[in-house]
């Protein structure tokens, strides 16, 4: 009995109560999504009525939604790949070469991290208008690339700084040029970082509303579509069903990313000299 208390004891301390409150605060609202998405009523209110898959059926058949989802996935996938490639190369440059003006360059790349999205959106809108470029998924993609690349670069810088630069020199010493060295040493050792960066950039782009709203023109991404649908109360349960799906996919992605990150940490510690 006493061992039992000592094991579970901390749960009932002040910190335990705080932790439970915190988790409840974060997750209970989120749990309403799947719950009401199966509720047989257009009104989001207790008590729950019956169980239904009606909203999921409606979800699968609404055209605008499929288009928006397709746009979002397409943009997010391309942005993830480009941002990660740019972030990796930029990280490689700032960690490995003595480039002149290194400090200002890093600041320049990192600035989009701290510029409020709305300001960025307006600025880009002005430029796109000035240049007379037609607004589409491409302009959204460019905007997203701008905000994701710094995150990717942050991840990759920490990854590249985590391994001995003598490894790359050893590869060169053994006869491989810069590109071969990258493919045979830098890239394999950065894989955990690259995957983390791909997932993060994908999520950033997939989530992003303001830039997509400003720069999309006729092309609509999922967040913009959802925002539009909120004007019709009858469509709300469908949006909840959609939210539940996104939640499930996010959960899988985050678990996957975390698993990779840990694997990366393991490789790093086991190879330390």
């Amino acid at each position: 009995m006493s061992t039992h208390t000592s094991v579970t004891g901390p749960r009932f301390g002040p910190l335990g109560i705080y932790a439970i409150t915190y988790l409840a605060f974060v997750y209970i609202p989120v749990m309403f999504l799947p719950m009401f998405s199966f509720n047989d009523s257009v009104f989001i209110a207790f008590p729950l009525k019956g169980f239904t898959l009606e909203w999921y059926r409606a979800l699968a058949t609404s055209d605008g939604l499929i288009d928006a989802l397709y746009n979002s996935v397409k943009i997010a996938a391309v942005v993830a790949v480009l941002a990660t490639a740019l972030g990796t190369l930029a990280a490689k440059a700032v960690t490995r070469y003595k480039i002149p003006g290194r400090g200002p360059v890093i600041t320049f790349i990192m600035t989009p991290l701290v510029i409020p999205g709305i300001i960025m959106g307006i600025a880009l809108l002005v430029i796109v208008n000035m240049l007379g470029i037609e607004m589409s998924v491409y302009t959204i993609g460019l905007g997203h690339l701008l905000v994701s690349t710094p995150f990717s670069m942050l991840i990759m810088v920490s990854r590249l700084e985590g391994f001995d630069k003598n490894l790359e020199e050893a590869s060169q010493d053994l006869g491989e040029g810069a590109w071969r060295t990258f493919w045979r040493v830098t890239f394999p050792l950065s894989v955990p970082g690259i995957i983390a960066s791909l997932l993060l950039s994908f999520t950033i782009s997939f989530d992003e509303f303001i830039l997509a709203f400003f720069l999309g023109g006729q092309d609509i991404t999922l967040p913009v579509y959802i925002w539009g649908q909120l004007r019709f109360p009858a469509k709300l349960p469908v949006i909840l069903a959609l939210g539940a799906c996104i939640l499930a996919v996010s959960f899988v992605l985050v678990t996957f990313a975390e698993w990779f990150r840990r694997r990366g940490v393991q490789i790093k510690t086991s190879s330390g000299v």
Partner: protein
Amino acid sequence: MSDEQFISIQNVSKHFGDVHAVDRVSIDIARGEFFSLLGPSGCGKTTLLRMLAGFEFPTAGEIFIDGQAMSTVAPNHRPVNMVFQSYAIFPHLNVSQNIGYSLRKDKLSKADFNSRVGEMLDLIKLSGYEDRASHELSGGERQRVALARALIRRPKVLLLDEPLGALDKQLREQMQLELRSLQRAVGITFVFVTHDQEEALTMSDRIAVMSKGRYLQIDTPTKLYEAPQNREVADFIGTMNFFDASVQDVGDGQASIDAGPLGKLSVSPGNLAFSSGQAALAAIRPEKISISSEKPSGGHVVEGTMDAAAYLGDRSHFYVRVPGVDKPVAVSAQNIDQTHLHGDGNQGQVWLSWSNDAVVLLNKD
């Protein structure tokens, strides 16, 4: 290009901003030589080695390897390979992939690849380790894998940056012998960096003693020890007793000096130039001084009192106060018949003696 100048470092400097890491160094290294760069931490050894490997380019001067100027040659096109201080074993590859890393361009069949790698594994006595991951190796094994990886293409020159630094004393001594016999077996020119003077003395054909980016003396281990050219070298290699002296007369291969408390001596100035009346240093190694509790007959003798004694089993170290000399004189003697000198806290009178050719005459600073 002659074999004597197989590697020719000509007036090479490397500056990092204000730091003169390597400062106007000229060294010729012969083909097949085991050449060491010895010096205290921060004296520019690694920087010089990295310039040979091509990871740094000289601020001034030129490096030739086998007659070819290296100033425009990238690391991957140089006929040299390097063993890094950290070994730099690729953590994502196993032992045979590490050793065979440089064989990609040869497009070998799997069997040929395995046999090339197998040869190297035999050489470093790690057969059977092919599939080991790098984190499953001990420090000594990693070091050997790094060595095999650098040697597999038979480079003309092997560069080694303190490769034994991370090993414990016993393994270190064993690897010193193995490395030396390996070098003889493969006949490759080794440029070996160390800050351990004993290691340099045991392994090298010649040693360059470096300090603050410059080299002080390049010589064989015996010459460096027996005939150092200046005080810094004499101090850095082994232990040395220094006595102020003044040069009285310089003759044909002989110089008469007045070494104060030690009296007047006639010594060989080696290849240093001295002039009459000049202040100089007389230097004597501890083991070249004889110590006894009875006054020896003949030779140069001074009397002193025992300051401290350390018994080291095979040898003893004595520190003897000699009137007129600031620091106690260090004496090292084989323990053949010295036990009486250790007596219970012997504070007694002792006599030190030496022969003329034990004395090295150096410039003051």
